[in-house]
């Protein structure tokens, strides 16, 4: 059996593994809601569903004292964030719990640590307190606050389930800026660009690092791939910029047959390349076992994220730490090591560890299965002009 055949079998097995993880995750999450409600408080017994998103129970030892549990979700950065509130017959909130989150753990810990959910305890559902979002975790805090308000409204029966979140002006600007970066990358890589391509590429990389990385913090990661695959984005997102960036990267990858994102746009790649240019270092020598280890790890992370229905489980890249200083202590240590290594080898993360590179390698390999051998989009035109 040839090497290519083995790799084709492994590629198909990877797709089957991801599908199996997604399917198993669906089976696991069925019936989860009632279990989660029972775990909110040991005082609640006899839980039954009375309306969509509304459950009724009674206090332990006092069946006449009714308790109402409302569940609602609001789009957060990584997908739908779901909260549950327990309201007594006096319409006072007794408990608030986070049922499902898809954001990075650090954001959740930061928001919960600032008492965003605890602020609602003891208040009546008709008199909500003014709770401010936590700086640096605005989307997550807003999702929790809105989730509690929606849950209270659903208990009252006044909740309109088909609420559509409109695109804000800021999101439109971000999307336009992302599209502009990709179109510039296409132009630079095309035959119509008559100037120095090397410096143009570096210039675009620098601009992208500042805009996409520093200003917007909208670099896509492996969790964005999982979000796209699992369909979590259909339930609404707090910000669509990273998803738009991913879709554009894939679109231009398939149409131009070039990985323009990694070469010209990736902000973290830009940081590494900038550091590498200080010392003029060479790229690291990538062995086969390094390549396959990274691919296996990527596959495992994606599988776990699909199984647990939490895209942020697939996040282990240092992007958030570099541009937003968000992440665990281990991620901080990894980020410092990678940045220091960038002074000695060129783009160490991109070459050796990046899961996005592994996914693009996979897509390039699968694309090569297409029966007709298509050349890059501008190569054919070059030959036409030459003849």
């Amino acid at each position, binding site marked *: 059996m040839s090497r290519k055949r083995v790799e084709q079998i492994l590629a198909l097995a990877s797709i089957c593994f991801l599908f199996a993880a997604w399917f198993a995750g669906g089976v696991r999450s069925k019936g989860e809601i009632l279990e989660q409600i029972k775990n909110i408080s040991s005082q609640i017994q006899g839980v039954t569903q009375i309306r969509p998103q509304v459950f009724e129970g009674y206090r332990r030892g006092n069946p006449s004292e009714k308790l109402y549990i409302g569940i609602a979700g609001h789009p957060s950065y990584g997908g739908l964030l779901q909260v549950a509130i327990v309201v007594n017959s006096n319409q006072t909130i007794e408990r608030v719990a986070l049922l499902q989150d898809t954001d990075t753990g650090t954001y959740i810990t930061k928001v919960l640590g600032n008492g965003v959910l605890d602020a609602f305890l003891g208040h009546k559902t008709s008199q909500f307190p003014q709770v401010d979002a936590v700086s640096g975790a605005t989307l997550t805090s807003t999702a929790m606050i809105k989730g509690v308000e929606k849950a209270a409204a659903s208990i009252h029966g006044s909740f309109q389930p088909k609420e559509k979140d409109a695109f804000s002006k800021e999101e439109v600007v971000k999307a336009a800026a992302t599209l502009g970066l990709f179109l510039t990358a296409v132009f630079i890589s095309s035959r119509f660009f008559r100037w120095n391509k090397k410096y143009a590429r570096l210039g675009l990389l620098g601009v992208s690092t500042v805009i996409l990385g520093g200003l917007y913090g909208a670099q896509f990661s492996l969790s964005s791939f999982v979000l796209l695959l699992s369909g979590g984005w259909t339930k609404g997102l707090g910000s669509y910029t990273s998803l738009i960036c991913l879709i554009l990267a894939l679109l231009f990858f398939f149409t131009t047959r070039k990985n323009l994102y990694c070469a010209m746009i990736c902000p973290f790649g830009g940081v590494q390349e900038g550091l590498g240019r200080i010392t003029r270092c060479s790229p690291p020598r990538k062995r086969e076992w390094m390549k396959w280890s990274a691919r296996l790890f990527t596959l495992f992370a994606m599988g776990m994220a699909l199984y647990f229905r939490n895209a942020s489980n697939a996040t282990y890249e240092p992007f958030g730490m570099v541009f937003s200083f968000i992440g665990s*202590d281990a991620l*901080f240590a990894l980020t410092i090591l990678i940045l220091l290594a960038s002074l000695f080898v060129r783009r160490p993360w991109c070459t050796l560890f990046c899961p996005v590179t592994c996914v693009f390698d996979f897509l390039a390999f699968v694309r090569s299965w297409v029966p007709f051998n298509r050349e890059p989009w501008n190569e054919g035109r070059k030959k036409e002009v030459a003849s």
Partner: protein
Amino acid sequence: MFPGSTMLNYIFWMMMGALQVLIVMGLVELLKSHGRKIVWWQVSLIYLGFAVFCSVIAGGTTLMGEYETIAGWYFIGVLGLPVVICLAILARLFVMKKKSA
């Protein structure tokens, strides 16, 4: 640092100072032996860079000594990285260049 002793503290810090001079001047001599021409203000920059790097390590380890280990590591990481990058830029400007004729 040395409880029960009056002289050891002074001797320790004198030795630390002497070691720093040896390290920096040793680096200068090493560069000279490789044919680099080092002027006085470049030596001052090397001293400054080394002093800043030592300060960052000292600050971080002081925090660790005050039982703030995580803060100490973050201090070293957040401040040490820009210092190392600046030292790399200086090395690129003054060391990693074509030898003077």
